[in-house]
């Protein structure tokens, strides 16, 4: 175990910005400053306590839903433009890591669409998206979705090539049911749908759909719900009109869930507790911790900003 301990100690003592790296000594390993571990533990305990004990933390001073409701208004306006009994294609390519962030908004969108009489067809280009889609289709069945309103197209391999193929042939030969028959009557391709709701993840996302499907089917409206990290990448497509609506932050998602909840959500009996938006207090505590740590690091580095770090000096000296 001795070499392992030594390695951990040496990596924890990287030189700070205003301090040149000390020559590594082989003697007794240096001790960490007292209190660092306890500080982290206290912060994490505070965060955990806020997450567990802060349901219903809505107040004038603390609110998760975004006061700027522009994203929600655009999404609902797009849903409002749908014809009666519309066919909506759900491109489910979320990943298991980030799906918890957008799940309440996705489920609210399913509720919102089904309340408007929409039929939903699910397709996935990723394996994780396929697993999530299968679970969501089962959940919608369990919720009592009307007969023939759901269709599971399944997993399509080949990502971009698969998407281009979907444009002409979206239905597998084995697909049956009212929705499958109706889509076949409309040509069987993606053009048979009135809207595509794209659920993004860290692998395949709305950008791939915009690149491959939008140029081939310019009349098919594309709306997206994606995790926060995807917002900078997708915002330009929203401005250009290639994406007609986008929910891509926790706050936008919370605002949307609040609007749909106001009209009556239909969760399964055991869901209300675990399918709510994250607590605003927990989010605030986490963000304040991040702000404090980042500010401390930044202010600590100010004296060294004008100087070159040893790594930069090595780089400039060249090989």
């Amino acid at each position, binding site marked *: 175990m001795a070499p392992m301990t030594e390695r951990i100690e040496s990596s924890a003592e990287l030189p700070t910005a205003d301090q040149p790296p000390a020559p590594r000594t082989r003697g007794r390993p240096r001790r960490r400053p007292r209190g660092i571990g306890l500080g982290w533990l206290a912060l994490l305990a505070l965060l955990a306590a806020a997450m567990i004990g802060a349901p219903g933390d809505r107040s*004038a001073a603390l609110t998760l839903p975004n*006061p700027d409701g522009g994203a929600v208004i655009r999404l609902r306006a797009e849903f409002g433009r749908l014809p009666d009994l519309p066919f909506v294609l759900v491109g489910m390519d979320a990943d298991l890591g980030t*799906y918890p962030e957008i799940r309440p908004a996705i489920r609210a969108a399913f509720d919102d669409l089904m309340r408007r009489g929409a039929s939903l067809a699910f397709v996935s280009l990723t394996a994780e998206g396929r697993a999530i889609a299968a679970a969501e289709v089962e959940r919608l069945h369990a919720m009592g979705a009307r007969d023939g309103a759901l269709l599971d197209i399944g997993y399509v391999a080949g990502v971009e090539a698969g998407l281009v193929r979907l444009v002409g042939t979206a239905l597998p030969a084995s697909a049956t049911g009212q929705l499958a028959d109706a889509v076949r009557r409309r040509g069987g391709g993606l053009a048979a749908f009135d809207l595509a709701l794209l659920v993004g993840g860290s692998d395949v996302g709305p950008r791939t759909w915009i690149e491959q499907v939008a140029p081939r089917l310019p009349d098919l409206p594309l709306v997206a719900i994606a995790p926060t990290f995807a917002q900078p990448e997708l915002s330009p497509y929203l401005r250009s009109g290639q994406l007609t609506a986008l929910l891509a932050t926790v*706050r936008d998602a919370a605002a949307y869930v609040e609007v749909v909840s106001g009209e009556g959500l239909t969760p399964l009996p055991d869901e209300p507790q675990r399918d709510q938006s994250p607590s605003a207090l927990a989010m605030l505590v986490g963000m304040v911790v991040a702000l404090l740590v980042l500010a401390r690091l930044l202010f600590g580095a100010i004296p060294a*900003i004008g100087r070159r*770090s040893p790594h930069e000096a090595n780089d400039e000296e060249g090989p």
Partner: protein
Amino acid sequence: MRRSLPAALIVAFGIVLLLDFVLVNPTLAGLADALLELVVLLAAAAALAGAFVLVLRHWTDLVERRRDPTGSLVLLGGFAAMLLAGFYPGSSGASDPAVRWLVAALLAPLVASLFAMLFVFLLAAARRGLAVRTRQASVMLAAALVVVALLLPIGGAAGTWLAAVATWTMDVPIGAVFRGLLIGVAVVTAVHASRVLLAVDGADD
């Protein structure tokens, strides 16, 4: 000429797909569909082959006690559990309750926990970044500080003002950077694709 066959295939396939995109011709459309079908089948076969190689490698590691036999055992156990849940007689595949339980109760919480740890690891990475590249890391941290402050979930007039500034920041400076980035990526991709299609020297290597 070392790679002339792959280059020739790429050029031929690329031209067919490009022509199919700009021309309406049933024969061309049929040919393009066949090519796409082939690519989809190849991708599916590659995924299966990848899974097979992964299992083979970890099985070998386990039998010969190389690298990390415990990790290999866990991986093979997980693989076997998921396959059994999806393939036992009478199973409904990916939508089978056993598969859904494995995904919802085991896989999703595990992956979400890993993502949650990003919070701690990103802060630690910021500290290390400052030690290695002080100026660049300082700019990045200052930007991160501003973005986090703008997204604070507070209400009232302050919250409304922060939300308005956050929207402007996303639409104007960050939006401009990402638009430039996306256009740059598209231009470079188009140039590289043209070099491959025109068989410009070195593009296929």
